[in-house]
């Protein structure tokens, strides 16, 4: 579609109006959530937050191309993909607060959710290290003759890491059902993509590894969905991996700890804000007659209430119990860890970290 939401009808992937509205809902949820959670961070109520603002089409358009049995191996900005595929919002908010409801017992920085049920793998903060896992999971699916595909996400900065090259090389050699989606938002904190690579595109790198690479307008949900669906279908039918570069722009900061006005020309950011994927998708939906202004208002109000309710419910949940400090290091807590915990058990409890620091 163009910047005003006009698309060639012959090239629009075949989905029902309900499907497109569901994708739009997933995109708006990210926006509403980002606004609310950044505000909480600024108020000191959560410790950290990383927005996906302006990248909603790349996140949800790609996730929508997966079947229920497929898996997501995410990077930092794909929580919206998890939510779209069944990661409960309350579970995500619990992770952000690091409270007792977090399945991982508050062990990680906010924006690192994951549940087995939603097929959304719990990420680390390391860059590109998840990509060999995506290859290994897809490889295992192939060995077990499962019919599932694994989607591995990355950013443009990750293309400089050795794990990116290792993963693409293994994928090219063993041809497991894996699809890599690079959200090229053109900034790795303060470093522009031109300083990450001298390649004219990210997509072109796939050719050297022996499989297709495709660049797509990352702010166009229709285009992202279409490109990823084609790659996922090919992977599922034994056709091997694909690298998809969704070209977008990080219109906000890297994270709540960052200030982009110190290192980039924000006039360029404004030109990308004008290509807002949500505005474009809403215009397209309106042209099709799938969504009117009142419906859009209602959707936003509903999602805002959903996020506020989840925040209100999770903010009052207490911190994880002390024993979680030593659980899950191994399958069973070994004696030496039980002994270490016993050393502090009778001492006064310390202040919580994270949001309360």
């Amino acid at each position, binding site marked *: 579609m163009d910047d005003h939401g006009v698309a060639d009808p012959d090239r629009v992937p075949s989905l029902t109006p309900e499907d497109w509205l569901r994708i739009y809902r997933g995109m708006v949820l990210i926006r509403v959530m980002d606004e609310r959670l950044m505000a909480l961070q600024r108020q000191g109520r959560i410790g950290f937050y990383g927005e996906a603002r302006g990248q909603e089409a790349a996140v949800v358009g790609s996730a929508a191309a997966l079947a229920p049995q497929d898996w997501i191996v995410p990077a930092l900005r794909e929580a919206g993909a998890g939510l779209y595929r069944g990661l409960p919002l309350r579970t995500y908010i619990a992770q952000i607060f690091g409270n007792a409801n977090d399945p991982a017992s508050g062990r990680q920085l906010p924006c690192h959710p994951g549940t087995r049920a939603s097929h959304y793998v719990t990420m680390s903060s390391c860059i590109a290290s998840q990509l060999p896992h995506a290859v290994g999971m897809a490889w295992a699916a192939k060995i077990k003759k499962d019919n599932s595909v694994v989607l591995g996400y990355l950013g443009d900065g990750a293309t400089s890491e050795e794990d990116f090259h*290792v*993963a693409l090389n293994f994928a090219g050699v063993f041809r497991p059902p894996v699809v890599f989606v690079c959200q090229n938002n053109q900034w790795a904190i303060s470093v522009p993509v031109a300083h990450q690579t001298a390649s004219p595109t990210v997509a072109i790198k796939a050719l050297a590894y022996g499989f297709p690479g495709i660049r797509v307008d990352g702010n166009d949900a229709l285009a992202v969905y279409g490109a990823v669906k084609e790659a996922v279908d090919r992977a599922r039918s034994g056709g091997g991996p694909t690298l998809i570069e969704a070209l977008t722009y990080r219109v906000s900061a890297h994270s709540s700890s960052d200030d982009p006005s110190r290192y980039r020309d924000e006039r360029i950011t404004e030109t990308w804000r004008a290509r807002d994927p949500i505005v474009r998708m809403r215009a397209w939906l309106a042209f099709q007659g799938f969504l009117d202004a009142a419906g859009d208002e209602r959707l936003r109000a509903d999602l805002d209430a959903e996020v506020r309710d989840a925040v209100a419910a999770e903010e009052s949940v207490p911190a994880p119990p002390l024993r979680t400090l030593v659980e899950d290091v191994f*399958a069973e807590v070994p004696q030496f860890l039980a002994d270490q915990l016993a050393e502090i058990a009778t001492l006064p409890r310390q202040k919580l970290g994270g949001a309360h620091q």
Partner: protein
Amino acid sequence: MPVWNIIQAVNDALRIEMRRDPRVVVLGEDVGKFGGVFRATNGLFDEFGPDRVFDTPLAEAGIIGAAIGMALYGLKPVPEIQFADFIYPAFDQIVNELAKFRYRSGGQYPAPVVIRTPYGGGIRGGHYHSQSPEAYFVHTPGLKVVIPSNPYDAKGLLLSAIRGEDPVIFMEPKRIYRAAKGEVPEGDYTVPLGQAKIVREGSQVTVLCYGAMVHTVVEAVEKVAAEGFDPEIVDLRTLLPLDSETVLASVRKTGRAVIAYEAPKTCGYGAELSALICEKALMHLEAPIARVAGFDTPFPYSLENEYMPSPDRVAKAIRDTASF
């Protein structure tokens, strides 16, 4: 009962477990058709085929990273890193990913990968075929670290490691891969992780060791025993979780401790053992703890036998400690 070397014992353990559990797969450099540069995976490709045994591209981070992904998906990968010296490209995958997956996901995504890797000097291998990097992995919460010293333990410990639910760094003493021979039951048996073995009972001084160094210590003890000394030898077998009960009971009995390890001395595993003894058994000590270790230098080529603790060096430490 057949008399096997460590290679044959490791090979047999892999075969037994691959027959028993279809989730077990083997991957690494040259492990397929060639059967591994040390032949530890010999015959597995022929028996289990290209869907269970994989020759990978030459990239350690890819081997371990892909193995982690396989484990997340429910397989039980046993990757081989050809030499422990080459494990560092996979260090981030091991330390930040493998070791932390269970913890960071609240137990939802365990990654039970058993990494086999030959370690240690004494084979005229120079800097890059001789290192003993066990301390890095013991220092990484979430990993178990196992180092057998003989064929019987190698088979039983490897079977335990693969059947467990935790990631294991399984370091194989390549200097004695073929030299250490012993009776090995042909069938299925396990040696539990976390249990040390008293190789020789003695009353006078405890000598703590593991892996290839056990054989150096045995040689040293034969010398000093002939002179009238009576050392006790403890083969740790598992460095993490450590069988601290056996270690401390022995030291409390003898009142003296010598620790032999071939890694660089500073912050090596012997430092941890020494600290443990000081914390838990100081009042039983009748002599300073002695560490006999590699030098704090890169591993040398021509003078490797001076670098590594020799039977003479260990024997001297035992005499000095016992007579303090």
